[in-house]
């Protein structure tokens, strides 16, 4: 459903130009959860912004559902890392979730109903009347996820979504992502710098090289489901995969042939 071919992006020009993306090829199938990992500053966010239509790449193409992405596609939602700057502090949690639904032509009661339902799915049933800043960081990120869910996108992009919450909350949110994903038939592209997280959450882990980023490895994660924070992480296959991904992230190309 998502096809990226030979995507390049250069910031600036002349000798000081920064080559962020050096020709990325990637195909994501319907319903897949693909994690993208890479060293920090490698251009992960540039890739995400190109897919979301927030940035016009200097070269290559992105097609979503067969259509080239020029502006932000209609059926795409983003969960940003910095929830406090993504949720609107002047609106209640319920209004934050319901606001994007105006474009879907839903009337007020239906918008409210959809927002309540999405908030229930992320475990925030009673929070619709609160303001985002009255909630903890993890809860605010749940609201962002609820907003994306209510929007019912074909593709959900998550940009280091659990990067600014504590470890316990992080695990909760990872499991939440897996849960909502099995509920909705959604394709998810999750960007992270956390190797364990990428293996734990993903069906597939795509490793990017240092900037200018190219695909350094593409591994299929074949772990028994449903995943569990304790048992999955002690599974030998998990341990092996995360070592594999770790090597690829560090740039030690030992065996890229593992890719499927």
């Amino acid at each position, binding site marked *: 459903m998502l096809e990226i071919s030979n995507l390049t992006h250069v910031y600036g020009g002349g000798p000081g130009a920064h080559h962020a993306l050096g020709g990325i090829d990637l195909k994501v199938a319907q319903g897949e959860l693909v994690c993208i990992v890479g060293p920090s500053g490698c251009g992960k966010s540039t890739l995400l912004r190109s897919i*979301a*239509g*927030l940035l016009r790449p200097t070269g290559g193409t992105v097609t979503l559902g067969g259509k080239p992405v020029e502006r*932000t596609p*209609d059926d*795409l*939602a*983003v969960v*940003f890392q*910095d929830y*406090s*700057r*993504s949720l*609107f*502090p*002047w*609106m209640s949690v319920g209004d934050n979730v319901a*606001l*994007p639904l*105006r*474009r879907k032509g839903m009337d007020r009661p239906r918008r409210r109903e959809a927002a309540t339902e999405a908030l229930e799915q992320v475990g925030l049933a009673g929070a619709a009347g609160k*303001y*985002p*800043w*009255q909630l903890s960081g993890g809860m605010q990120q749940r609201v962002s996820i609820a*907003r994306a869910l209510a*929007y019912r996108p074909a593709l959900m992009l998550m940009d280091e979504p659990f990067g600014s919450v504590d470890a316990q909350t992080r695990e909760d949110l990872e499991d939440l992502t897996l849960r909502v994903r099995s509920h909705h038939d959604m394709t998810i592209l999750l960007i992270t710098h956390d190797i364990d997280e990428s293996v734990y959450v993903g069906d597939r882990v795509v490793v990017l090289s240092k900037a200018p980023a190219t695909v350094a490895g593409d591994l299929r994660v074949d772990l028994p489901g449903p995943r569990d924070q304790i048992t999955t992480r002690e599974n030998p296959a998990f341990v092996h995969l995360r070592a594999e991904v770790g090597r690829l992230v560090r740039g030690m190309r030992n065996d890229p042939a593992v890719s499927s």
Partner: protein
Amino acid sequence: MRFLRALGRLWLVPVVLVAWEAATRLAEDIFFPPPTTIAARMHEMWFSGPAERLWLTDAALENIPTSVGRLFAGWLLAGVIGVVLGVMLGRSALLSRFIDPLVQFGRAIPPPALLPFFLALFSVGAQMQIATIVFGIVWPILLNSSDGARHVDRQHLETSTVFGLSRSQRLFWVILPSAMPKIFAGLRLSLSLALILMVISELVGSVNGIGFQLLDAQRSYDLPGVWGTIVVLGVLGYLLNSVFLVAERRVLSWHRGANRTT
């Protein structure tokens, strides 16, 4: 408790009043009448009317509402002009580049300097007074609105792009609320400026209003009357600011809350 705390804050007021009374009585200076004389004169000027009109005199009914009406008319007009123009300038770099020099020039002109011009343009009356008020107070609103609209968090804008908000939804649900704290700062500043310009415009060319009454009292050497008018202006300014703060606290409760926790 609250009452006691308010009392604790206000204890200085009677002390100052008593000291002022004592000092002016001792000095017996015609330019500095004692507060009791001023209060008596104020009562006579404004509050000695019939009970069915809430004890307000003709002078009070003629001058105070007229002045406050001009003040609000000027303030509201300046608010609309300032916010609309300000948001346009803040959101359009091109427009801002062309208009900004004009804005900088306009706000550098001391508003009273334009009084002769407005007098010639509109002649004596409400139009001229409102024009003076608007021209004098529109700048803080305009500059603050444009600043607020310019500095909307980029992620908030990207969020609205991603979720496909239309231009008007983006304006009313994202840009305006985000600029609201700045807009309110501008409105508050210009409210106190509006009082000043109201008095100035009434001093120059007017046949009624608080400023005219001040001038009238001064011309007839009615110094308690002058002082009384000054007190009324002070009270009016204080009331306007207090009411505004209550409104601001309601509208911007999210802003206070969000900033307390982050």
